[in-house]
């Protein structure tokens, strides 16, 4: 078991803790992003054999960009919520 898998698992759990314990929305959002990084790291490290697995790399590349779009959109939603209060 490589150090990358352990790091991914630790990031996963820490992000989960942040989502559960923090009250502020932005903290929760950062927690979700840490959580997602852990998932991506486990995905890449778990599929690494002699070389990087091409399908897993392509999937994670897609996921990275989509998660960025999702967090940008949720930040904008939160800002318009603050504005409307």
């Amino acid at each position, binding site marked *: *078991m490589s150090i990358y*898998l*352990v790091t991914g*698992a*630790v990031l*996963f*759990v*820490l992000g*989960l*803790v942040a989502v*559960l*314990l923090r009250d502020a929305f932005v903290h929760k959002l950062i927690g979700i992003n840490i959580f997602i990084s852990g998932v991506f790291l*486990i995905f890449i490290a*778990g*599929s*690494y*054999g*002699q*070389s*990087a*697995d*091409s*399908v897993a*790399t*392509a999937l994670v*590349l*897609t996921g*990275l*960009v*989509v998660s*960025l*779009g*999702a967090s*940008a*959109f949720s*930040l*904008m*939603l939160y*800002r*318009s919520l603050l*504005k409307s209060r």
Partner: protein
Amino acid sequence: MKAFEKAVWLGAVLFLGLLLGALIMLDPFDPALHRHISASIQNSALSHPVTAVLLDFRSLDTLLEAGVIVLAAAACLVLWPMFFYKPAAFKASVIATYGAFVFPLIAVVATYLLYSGAYQSGGAFQAAALFGGGLILAHLNGSLHLGAIPAVFIRALYSLGLFVFIAVGFLGAAEGSFLQYPQEGRYYLILGIETSLALSLSALLAAFFIQAVERIGR
């Protein structure tokens, strides 16, 4: 520390142990798909497996991903609240150095990354991330006057990549299934898709940041 916090931390440690146990007991990964792709890579116009998966074997996924990004940017544009933002003041030497030296350097490296995707790690998304970062910095220090670009042009740029992708998809649909590239000129079609995708993705990624911090209001 409250009881709830203690319980969450305890649960987290237990969950981490469970997760690590599961990862230890995981069967060794069998790269069956990777072998399949390595065997059929000569059918593709590209020699790097990751780029071949992204733009040749599973190009529909990449098309839908570009669609998701355009959709997210459109949603951000709808939500664009009025927000006063005063650009930070930089020394003139910093702005001039960035505009004249650093930004062109970023553009050159992004172009290299884009075109080297055909045979090594790289490609549209990596190039777009780099170039989008350059655009964000250029906007923040005001060295390139990005605000002076007409909004119509920028919106056209947002949808350029998706538009070219779908157009090429229907080009292939005439003689087969959707997104089946025609045999001749396959490499140049993929290159065209990558270039337009990188251009519009970098504009979109920069827009995610710029829209979130800026608005004209007073």
